[in-house]
Structures are given as structure tokens and as C-alpha cells.
């Protein structure tokens, strides 16, 4: 059952809990440069903090314009290196500041997968696609073949290696995009709305692959998503971002039950959380359902009692 697995990837509490952090965001402020000279800078992030342990799955939710994509791009240094603008605070990848290291140096550690797989896939075959990033990094050929095979196996796409990406379904394309990032052996993958536009089968494929990566390979995951049902089921922590600030952060069983923060961010919560919230108000119960299975067990027990 997934709930039981949810915390497994998290590192045990060491004496210094920060010692094994793969990623740290410290009081990050960012403003994009104005489009026209003389206009104001556009504040997007206004003091964001985030610690990420190996194998941790953190979801970021919030309204359009909250700064979610900007945060994702700051994690591997694209912001501010390619975007300019005003930047304060810092992002540390394995303790190394993105201010002092090139995007190309950070790319192997922090892999980013974007919303629309179409914009990331451009090669003739699935294997060329996955090899592309490694070629750019100068990975030697024998090692490249091993990593290619591994990455495709991890996302369950081995049998498609000679296919053209154009012949694949949306979920399969997104899995190839994830494989291309995995071949770089990142310790963190950042996914920006990876299931937007996919059908339910495709969404399920993406969440399953990501869940497996963090559980079996301790890859930390930062996922920007609107799909509250899957976020509740799979995430260790949820971060609600609004107007460039983290308005609340914690395990899904806390965040989805923080009615004020949920209303402020305008995000959806799982229907079973709505059910629990209403029942708690009516009957004084203290349910914290996150999945249909939770809710069934909780209500069934209550009935038997």
C-alpha cells in the first residue's frame, strides 16, 4: 500500500539533519527584468525556503502566476543565469551554490522535465533522444550504452528504443523525457506539470515511474502539479505557493486539511479530504483521509465501533 511506503525514501534523522541534503533553497527572492526599459522589475519569488533529502517527494501546488515554474528553473540555475533579473538568497545543490556553478555543471545533478514532452523530444529515435544529453556531457560510448539501457528500463520503455518518439502516446513521450534526464544520473528531478494534457493512463504512468525512482533509487523529486489525488497519495510533503511565498508546507495530511491555506491558494483537495472535513465538522471525528482506501478503512472502523 502506498501510504505505508510514502516515507520510505526519506533519509533517517542524522545528528545534523542538513548533512545529507541534496538541495537547499534559502530565502530565495527573484524578480524578472522588465520587458520594456524603464518598467518595473516583476517580483516572482519573495522568500522561498526548501530542504530536500535523498528520495524525498515534494509537490508544489499553487495558482497560475504563483512562481512555481520560476522556482523550478531556479533549482538548476537557469534562473537567474539565463534570465537575468534581481536575485537574492541562494540555491545549494549538494552544498554547491548555483551562483558559482554553470547550468551545465548542475544539469547532471538536477534534471528538469517540462510540461509538454513535444517541446523536449526532437530526435529520430527514442535511444537518440536519451543519448543526446549524455553526448553533450561527453560520456564515453560504452558507459553511454549502459546508462541508456538502464534509463529506458527504469521508465519501462526498453522495447521502444528504436521507435520514433512521434509514434508514442503522451504518457510514453513523457517517460522518454524522464529517461533522458535520468541518463544524466541526477540526484534530483524537477518536473513542471508533467501530466498536464495526458489522459488518465498517461498520468498514472508518470506518477508510477516517479514513485519508483524515488523509492528504489533514492532520487529526490520536486513536482509541480495540479493533480491533488495523486499528490495526496504519493508526496511526502506538499508546498503551497502563492504570490511568490510558501503559505504552508507539510505532509499532505496536514496541508490538505489546512482549510484557510487551501482556500487562499485556490488549489483542489482530494474529494475524500472534503468528505473527512465535512464529517469532522458534523460529528467531531478527526479523520485525515488522503485516499479512497484510507477513507474506506476509516469509515468502516468507525461504523464497527
Amino acid at each position: 500500500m502506498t501510504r505505508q511506503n510514502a516515507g520510505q525514501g526519506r533519509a533517517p534523522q542524522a545528528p545534523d539533519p542538513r548533512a545529507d541534503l541534496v538541495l537547499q533553497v534559502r530565502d530565495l527572492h527573484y524578480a524578472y527584468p522588465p520587458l520594456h526599459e524603464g518598467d518595473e522589475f516583476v517580483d516572482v519569488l519573495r522568500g522561498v525556503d526548501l530542504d530536500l533529502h535523498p528520495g524525498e517527494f515534494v509537490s508544489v501546488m499553487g495558482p497560475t502566476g504563483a512562481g512555481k515554474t520560476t522556482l523550478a528553473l531556479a533549482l538548476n540555475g537557469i534562473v537567474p543565469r539565463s534570465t537575468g533579473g534581481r536575485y537574492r538568497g541562494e540555491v545549494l545543490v549538494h552544498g554547491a551554490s548555483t551562483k558559482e556553478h554553470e547550468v551545465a555543471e548542475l544539469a547532471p545533478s538536477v534534471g528538469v522535465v517540462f510540461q509538454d514532452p513535444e517541446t523536449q523530444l526532437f530526435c529520430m529515435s527514442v535511444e537518440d533522444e536519451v543519448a543526446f544529453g549524455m553526448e553533450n556531457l561527453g560520456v564515453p560510448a560504452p558507459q553511454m550504452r549502459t546508462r541508456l539501457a538502464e534509463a529506458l528500463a527504469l521508465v519501462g520503455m526498453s522495447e521502444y528504443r528504436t521507435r520514433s518518439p512521434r509514434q508514442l502516446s503522451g504518457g510514453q513521450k513523457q517517460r522518454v523525457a524522464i529517461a533522458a534526464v535520468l541518463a544524466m544520473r541526477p540526484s534530483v528531478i524537477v518536473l513542471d506539470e508533467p501530466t498536464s494534457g495526458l489522459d488518465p493512463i498517461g498520468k498514472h504512468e508518470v506518477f508510477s515511474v516517479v514513485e519508483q525512482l524515488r523509492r528504489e533509487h533514492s532520487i529526490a523529486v520536486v513536482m509541480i502539479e495540479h493533480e491533488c489525488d495523486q499528490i495526496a497519495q504519493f508526496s511526502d510533503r506538499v508546498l503551497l505557493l502563492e504570490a511568490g511565498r510558501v503559505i504552508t508546507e507539510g505532509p499532505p495530511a496536514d496541508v490538505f486539511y489546512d482549510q484557510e491555506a487551501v482556500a487562499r491558494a485556490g488549489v483542489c483537495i482530494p474529494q475524500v479530504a472534503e468528505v473527512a472535513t465535512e464529517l469532522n465538522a458534523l460529528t467531531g471525528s478527526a479523520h485525515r483521509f488522503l485516499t479512497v482506501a484510507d477513507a474506506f478503512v476509516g469509515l468502516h472502523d468507525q461504523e464497527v465501533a
Partner: protein
Amino acid sequence: MNVAALTQPTAQHPVVAPPLITVDHVRHVYDNGVAALDDVSVQIGRGELIGLVGQNGSGKSTLAKHLNGLLRPTSGQVEVAGLDTRSASLAEIAQHVGFVFQNPDHQIFCSTVREELAFGPRNLGLSPAAVESRVALGLEAFGLEAFADHPPALLGFGLRRKVSLASVLSMRPDVLVLDEPTVGLDWRSALELMAIVERLHEAGHTIVLITHDMRIITRFTTRAVVLRAGTVVADGPTRSVLLDTDLLRATQIEPTQVVRLSGELWPDQPPAFEVDELVQRWTGEGRRS
């Protein structure tokens, strides 16, 4: 917001026969030989709000594009407001059917929001005064007045979505086909958009809604058509279609959490469809399973 102002008086009638749209034994084969639709028949009455459901590749978008003549049947027939789409021009059909694409950028191309809303009515040959009046109503209905002279391409995604819907409504079509209108929107914006769709429906528009979001299908549509591999596998009142768990499993469509939970709690009863229904049943007598 005054969406009713965007409705033409003729669209105020309740559902009446004959159907506004008839899809009759339609087969569609793409140039690459793939049969995307195979013997599909659907009748759509005036004033319906229909959900079109199915996995990607099931034929939903192909069917939707037959409703506005963007695609024509390889065999069979599609009739829209008395026009046979094989012989009618796209412009004629466009007066009856507005199509809102999944990606608003596929239909936004003017330099200002105002121009975007004026484009359709001007092409219909309306007088400048009539065009101006429709633009003003559209800007007001969607709260876009402040952005009238902005380039739509520079607006945020939610606003571009509204511009694409407003520009289609400027043509005052009887029928609106919405292809995944809530994709890429945050939940609050998705609900705002669905509130607009609901008001348009109440004002008499016929609406065909393609979405994977079963919460939206359950809450907003009265009829659901389920497609699988190019054929219609279910067509009926949404709540009846959602009762057919075998069919949904076979089409890999997962009902909402409330429907699934009530199925587990009360396997012998029809499910609750909304949170309130489930909570009421649980706290009331239905708690005895």
C-alpha cells in the same frame, strides 16, 4: 459577469426535436490509414450539455472536429443545424458551431484582445456598430475590459483561455465545442471557467465538452458519451453511465473518489455522486450498510 448577453435569442429554447446535430454512421480514416472513427452515430439536441469521454486516441477530438466541419466523414453523414458538412462551407458551419481548442494559442493571432473579439463578427459581415457592440459585451462578460488593448499573446494562460472563449462566442454560435478547456488551469480558474460554461448552458447554448476530469464530467454534464477505439461504447445520462463499472474499467476511466468510496461503503446501492450526498448518506440512515 453577464454571459447571458452573449446568447442569441433563438438559442433560448428548451431541448426540442429534431436534433441540432446528427452524426450518422460516421467512419473516418486518416491519410495514414488509421480508422479513428468507426460507425459512430450520435444525436445532439438543442440545449444539451454533453461530456465526451475516452482515453487519448479513442476518437474524441476526431469526432469533435466533425461537428464543425474541420474534418469530414470518410463515409456516413454529419448534419449540423440542417447543413450537411460534406457540402456546407466552413464559414456556414462556423455560424452555428464554435470550437474552442485545447491550446488557446492555436486560435489567438490578433495584436489586441479587442481585435481578437472583433475578428469573427467582422468575418460574418456584421456592420461596424454591431461588431463593436459584440466586442464590448464580450469584454464585459469575461472581465477583459482592462486588457482590451493588450496583446493577447502576452497575457497569462488563464486570461488567454478566456480570450479564446470570448472570441468564439463573438460569433454567437448555437453550439460550443470545448476541447479540454480546463487543462493547464489551476483549480480555482477551472471552476471559474466551468461557471461560465454552466451559465452559457443555462442561457440555451448547446455544449459539447471534452475532458478527462471526471469531477467535472460528474458535476456539470447531464449526458455522457464514452468513446473507445473509435466507437461509441456508452451514451446516456451521465449518472447512469457512471454506474456501469465494468464498462468504465474496460475503458480505463476511473470514476471520482466519491463514487468509488460510496461503491465500497454501500456495494448494493447506487453511488453518491457528490461529497454532500455521501456525507448525508453516511450520517443518515444509509450508514447501515
